[in-house]
Every structure is written in structure tokens, then in C-alpha cells.
């Protein structure tokens, strides 16, 4: 893919190994002998999956966190349907990124490169297949590298979507750039400031608009993408960023917020593009975070509010899948890691199939006996 990814002038382009990393569920206590590196579950869609990385530079605005940076640099990881299944699997992250993340999260007892040895499914720099495919932008949680959403990204690509995951520089513990620089979490310095979340999602919305500009026009493989079929999903503040990006950029036709407190102002007159809240038990109506209650009233189009019983904040990410390799035992009563990944993949894909492919399956119509953990709010999930 390296050759065909040459971007138009003004862009720094580099295909490089996929990077970034995870972090484990906090609720758990270390225990049990480590099980060796984790393997992400295989994607369930029919298409082989490729992945590559782009480095983009937005010279039109200053970096929101680093006053010494001359431009906003972004690392974008793409997952897409590929022609062939064979080839080298992309690394999950570098050993250095693994070490930084584990140190920041205080994980000891297993080698610091453990996360970098996580086995992925996508083939590095594989030749893409198809054209005019729907595009899904993914945005990770605060301090989390983009690759903490790899399980979801690979699944969507196997089902025929192009996925563009953004590492919002300085909002993650570790983002490696082609010259070897590792950008750490400068935003972490101010994460207790009032208005912090509002500022983050504003910046991420600008990141998304810039990435869409590049992918849909400047990129010489922009034909891979159908620019009229773009959605966005994210976890935690990445989910809040999905809402913020939609409000600001009409190219984003539909959005999913996975367990993120929201910050963007929806116009008082309402907002009619399709939106789905997918949350853990913290995010029931009338729960401690009232932001979804506030926004729900302003969403006037197709909408869903789904809560996973036993789900945790990390259930929508790879993190529970990596816990065992890190010697972390899941807390009791929590949705098993594989089941969390399965439900996340199924409901996110059902939403995207409905709104980007015009294929409304039954999954989002209401409760299903095969998915008893899934509650449809606000009607069926008052705070207990």
C-alpha cells in the first residue's frame, strides 16, 4: 500500500507499522501468572483486512497543547478491506509505546514490551480492495492510543468499511512519529481544568474535519472512500468527540458515543442526524453523568440509547482482552472480555449497516434473547 498512498503536496506521508497501545481495566487487581501475549479475536466479516498508517500535518492551526509545535501533526491508522489475507500482521504497537503505557498505568509483573507482542489480524500495508466504501472515523479515550480500538476497527474493515482511527497528538500517553519522536500526554497536565472536556472535543472535531479533507480529496486513494457515507464512533471522550464532530461537520452523517460524557453543544433547535449512545451501567438515564439525558432531548432524528449490563468503561475497547496478558484478573460480575468485544462489534456494525449501507437489521429494533445484556433506554433501563 505504500506506493499508492502517496498524498498530495503539503502532506507528510509515511506508511509505517501500526502503532499505539492500550491500558487495562482499573478495577482489577494483579493476580495469576501471566498468560503470554494476547491475541485479538478474529474479525467476523468476509473480507481480508489491511492496515497502514498516515502522518498528516495541518499547518492551518496551532497545536492546542504544544505551544512550541509549528503545526498540528496527526497520526491516522487506516484499516480497510484488502485483496489478500497473506502478509505480515501489523504490530499492535512499539515496545517503547508498550513500556510508556504500562508505566503510566502502573502495571508491573510482566515484561514492559508485553503489549507490543499482542497479535493482531490485519495485514500491514496490504493492497486495498474496492472503491466507494463507507468510511468510519474512530476516536479513542483520553490517554489511550488509537489502537485500543483495534478489535472494533478490524471487524468493521472485514465487513467492508474503511476505518480511519485518529491518534489525537498529546492526548495519548504515547504517539510515535516517523522520526522516532514519541509525543506524550501534554494534555494530561490540564485534565482537571474546568472546560477541559469542552476544549478537547472542540480540538478533536477540528482534527476530524482536517482528516476528512485529506482522506476525501488530497489522498490519491480517495476513490476508496464514498465521501457521502461517513460516520464516526469513539470511546469515552472519543465518543464525545464523535458528537462534537457531527455537530460541526455535516459530512459526518451518523455517530456513536461509547460510554463518553458529552461536551459539545447541540443546537437548541435540535439535531436530526442518526446518533447512538452505547454505554456501561454508569450511563443509565438519571445516572451520575447527566450529559446523555441533556443531549437525548435534543436529538430529534433516529436515535438509540443502549446500556450493557455488566459493561465497564473499557468494555468497548481492547483493554479487557489484554488484561490476562498483563496479569490482571477481571473484577467479578463484569462482562467477560470476549463478550464485551462481541457485543460492541455487533451493535456498532448494526448501526453503521443501517445508516451507511441502508441495511436495517433487527438488532437495533429492540431487545433480543440472544443478547440479554443489552438494554434499550430510556424506557427499559431506569436506574435500579
Amino acid at each position, binding site marked *: 500500500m505504500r506506493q499508492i498512498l502517496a498524498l498530495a503536496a503539503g502532506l507528510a506521508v509515511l506508511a509505517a507499522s501500526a502503532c499505539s497501545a492500550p491500558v487495562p481495566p*482499573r478495577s482489577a487487581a494483579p493476580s495469576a501468572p501471566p498468560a503470554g501475549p494476547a491475541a485479538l479475536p478474529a474479525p467476523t466479516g468476509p473480507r481480508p483486512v489491511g492496515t497502514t498508517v498516515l502522518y498528516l500535518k495541518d499547518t492551518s492551526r496551532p497545536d492546542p497543547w504544544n505551544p512550541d509545535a509549528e503545526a498540528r501533526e496527526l497520526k491516522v491508522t487506516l484499516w480497510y478491506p484488502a485483496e489478500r489475507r497473506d502478509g505480515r500482521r501489523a504490530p499492535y504497537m512499539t515496545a517503547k509505546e508498550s513500556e510508556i503505557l504500562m508505566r503510566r498505568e502502573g502495571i508491573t509483573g510482566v515484561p514492559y514490551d508485553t503489549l507490543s507482542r499482542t497479535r493482531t489480524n490485519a495485514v500491514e500495508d496490504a493492497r486495498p480492495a474496492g472503491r466507494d466504501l463507507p468510511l468510519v472515523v474512530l476516536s479513542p479515550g483520553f490517554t489511550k492510543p488509537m489502537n485500543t480500538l483495534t478489535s472494533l476497527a478490524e471487524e468493521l474493515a472485514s465487513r467492508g468499511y474503511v476505518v480511519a482511527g485518529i491518534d489525537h497528538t498529546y492526548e495519548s500517553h504515547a504517539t510515535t512519529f516517523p522520526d522516532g519522536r514519541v509525543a506524550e500526554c501534554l494534555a494530561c497536565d490540564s485534565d*482537571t481544568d474546568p472546560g*477541559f*472536556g469542552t*476544549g478537547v472535543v*472542540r480540538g478533536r472535531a477540528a482534527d476530524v474535519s482536517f482528516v476528512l479533507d485529506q482522506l476525501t480529496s488530497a489522498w490519491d486513494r480517495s476513490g476508496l472512500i464514498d465521501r457521502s457515507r461517513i460516520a464516526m464512533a469513539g470511546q*469515552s471522550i472519543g465518543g464525545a468527540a464523535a458528537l462534537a464532530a457531527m455537530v460541526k461537520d455535516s459530512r459526518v452523517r451518523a455517530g456513536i458515543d461509547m460510554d463518553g460524557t458529552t*461536551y459539545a453543544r447541540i443546537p437548541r433547535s435540535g439535531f436530526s442526524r442518526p446518533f447512538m449512545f452505547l454505554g456501561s451501567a454508569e450511563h443509565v438515564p438519571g445516572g451520575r453523568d*447527566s450529559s446523555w439525558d*441533556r443531549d437525548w432531548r435534543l436529538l430529534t432524528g433516529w436515535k438509540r440509547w443502549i446500556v450493557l449490563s455488566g459493561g465497564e468503561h473499557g468494555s468497548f475497547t481492547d483493554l479487557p482482552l489484554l488484561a490476562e496478558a498483563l496479569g490482571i484478573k477481571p473484577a467479578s460480575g463484569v462482562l467477560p472480555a470476549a463478550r464485551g468485544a462481541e457485543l460492541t462489534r455487533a451493535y456498532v456494525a448494526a448501526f453503521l449497516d443501517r445508516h451507511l449501507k441502508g441495511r436495517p437489521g433487527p438488532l437495533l429494533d429492540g431487545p433480543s434473547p440472544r443478547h440479554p445484556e443489552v438494554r434499550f433506554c430510556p424506557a427499559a433501563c431506569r436506574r435500579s
Partner: protein
Amino acid sequence: MTVTRTAAAGLALLLAAACTAPTPPRSQASTAGSAACTQPQGSPGPETATTIDVVEQAYFCILGNHYGGATLDARSLLVAGFAALTQELNRNGRDLPEAGMPPLTGDRKADWAAFEAAYRKITDRVPDLRDRLAVVTLESMVAALGDDHASWTHGGRRPPDMYDGDGYGLGLEANVTRSQATGDLGTALPPLFVTAVLGGAARAAGLRPGDVVESVTGSAPFIDGKATPAIAALYPRYPEARPVRLRLLRQSTGRRWSVTLKPGLYERDPAALRVVTSKLLDDDVAYVRLTAFAPDSATRVLKAMTRLRTGRTLAGVVLDLRGNTGGSVKEAARLLSAFVHGEVTAYLCTADGRCEPVRTDDTVELLGLPLAVLTDRGCASACEHFSSAVKDLRAGRLVGARTAGVISGPSQGYLLRDNTVLAFPARHHLGPAREAIDRIGVPPDHHTPLTPQDAAAGRDPALAKALTLLHE
């Protein structure tokens, strides 16, 4: 406490929002003390009704943990609580023949039993007022401590339409701060004028800094030079929403007019809300503004100063602490440690005079630059810890106005049975020379009062004076 409560509310809000778990700001107080109440672990569950059992828990919690608890005459709390209870009965037209204060002996447990028996007898007669009476009783007991860092947080509601960073109120700040207007009016000086327009109704009505407020909903803000409670109407708190009518004078044009401002939510710029902001002034002065001693704020300030210093020779640094709402004792001491080593920055004392020193953290590298600190009546709590130490230890010059005098001691939260939080200090704060800062404030080395003319013209006499000092 108003000041510190605002900061704590901001932090609590972020605790819910951000994904890393920040250290709570005022956590260094005692862990010893009475078992009547414990420090909250994580966020409390949903609030339940306040009952006499909760009032009892609070009473013994205060006596067991407040810095003055050991020497306090507990009867003062019970009398204050009972007085509020009788007033509430009367306001509801339900005064009762048996609502008289029971005799107290000075024995804390026996007095509580007598109080509780009388309380129960009354509330059995007015069961519909039971919850309300418990609330006013507890509120008054806390108020009776006369402690600006004592508070009882309950029934806390946020506007449902609020966004992170939003303000609530009229959208303005005046030279008489919220803390002064709702606390010690004796510190306020005429005339009352707008110092900042933040948004909301004030912006929509076209108010500007420097506009003099001649009346607040028909009342004079000052009578014979003394501030009146009318000024507090400038700072409504949710859910207060009654419109406020202001008569204004714009001195530059001589225009007099009236506006009616309705309290509400207003949006603020997240960039302006950052706790640490910095810039280079006159090519050789690092200016850093710090709005609260939040977690890691000392490191952030020093990082900003170091960055501005890179590649140039600085004449000094200006640390702008005006409006700084306080926060962590540790952060105040750490920041000071960039300017002086081997010193005591404050003492934290019990009522009977047993004191623990707070010392500089000498692992912090000395900056080695002249320091000017801007202070005003909005500089409270940890901000006064810092300012008093700068002055006493001659670590720099203070410029501006006297600080708030709101620094009873570092406040510690205790969870009550109804999932509300009672907070007060376990130690009283004294300056490096063991002098009281609470209620007095810290007088600046250079007094530079702000006039309405300065505010209207965007002049900053305190900053100008600080720059002059650093360039001398």
C-alpha cells in the same frame, strides 16, 4: 468558603468527566479523629433524606475532627441549630408551645440526648416539616462554627442544560467579589463597578468593564461608604433565577441607564478557563497566571516559566494570583520552593496550639529569578498560604490588593449517612511567623487599587507596577 467551594465544585465536575483519576486537592488533613464520620471513598451514592440521626452524626463528627472540636463549647452548636429550627417553624406558621430549648449542662453526650429528645417531640407534631427542619438545623450548626472552610454540601443540583465550563449567573464580575458580597462586607470599597464581562445577560445587555453600578434592584450598594447586602444579588447561584435590575453609570460618556439581567447559564471559552496560562511580556518577563492550586499546578507553572526562559535572559517573573480560589497546601508549598529553600511556609495548628510546620520541598529546583506576585481580594485559601509565605520569607514582592482572608485551614470532607458531604479543617492555618492570615488577609507590599477608569480603559496598574519593580 464560597471561594473554595467554587473550586471544589469545578474539580468534582471534572472528576466525573476526565478519564484519569486526579488527586483530590485538599487531602492532606488529618486521618485521625473521631469514627463518627469517614472520608468519602469514590463518589457518594444518591442522597437520602436528612434525618436527626444525620444531624447527630455531623455533631459528633465536628466535635471529633474540627480543629477547634476539643475546646469548643458544644452548646453553641446546639443553640444555633435549635434557633434555626424555631425560626423555620415560625416561618411556616407552625410554632409550638413545646418548641423551647432544653437545658444543657456542658456534657456533650447528655446535651445531645436532651436536644434530640426535644427535636423529636417537635417534629412528631409537624411530620410534614421533618426533612426541612433537619436541613436547617444542620446548616445552622455548621454556620455556627464561623469557619470559612466549613460547609455542608447537600441537595446539589446542576442546571440540566449545563455544559462543562459553563458559568451561571449574570455573566459579570465586579470589584466587590462574590466572596466579599456573601461573606465579609466590611472589606468592600465604593464605588461598585464591573471589572469583567464574562458572557450571558451582562454581555447581551452591553455592559463593559468600568461601568459603575449605582443601584442593585432598587437598593444602594453602599450607604455612608459601607457595603450593603444588596451587592450579593450580583452573584446568584443556581437555582436562583430572579432578574436583577441594575442602574448603571458609564463615566466616560456620562450615560446613566438601567438594565434587567436574568441569571442563567453562559458559555465560556475553554482556553480562558485553563488553570495555568502564560506569556512573555516586554521580551524579558515571564507572566504566568494561576487560577487555582489544582493538582500538579506547581509543576505546570514552573514548566511554563522554564519554557519562556529558554533562549533568553529574563528580568523576572510575574505570577498573577488574582482571583485564585486556592486548592492544595502541597502545591502552594511546592511552588514556593522554586523561590526559597529550607523554610517553613505555614503552620497547621490545633486549637490548643499544637502546630505542624509545612516546609518547602527542597527537591524543587530554585528558579533564581526575581518574583512579583499579583494579589487581590479574590486570592483565597492556598493562594494566601503562598502569598503570606512570599511576603514573610522575602521570596518576592506582592503587588495589588489585600488577599481574601479566607484561610481557616485545609478543608477535609466527611461522608454522612445521607450521602451528603460535610467539610471543615482539622487544622487551623497560620503564616510562617505563626501569624493569623484567616479573616485578615495578606497586605501587599505595593498597593495598586483599580479604579473604574482603569477597568474601562483596560489598564492594569498592578501589572504595570510589577513590571516596573522587575526592571528596576
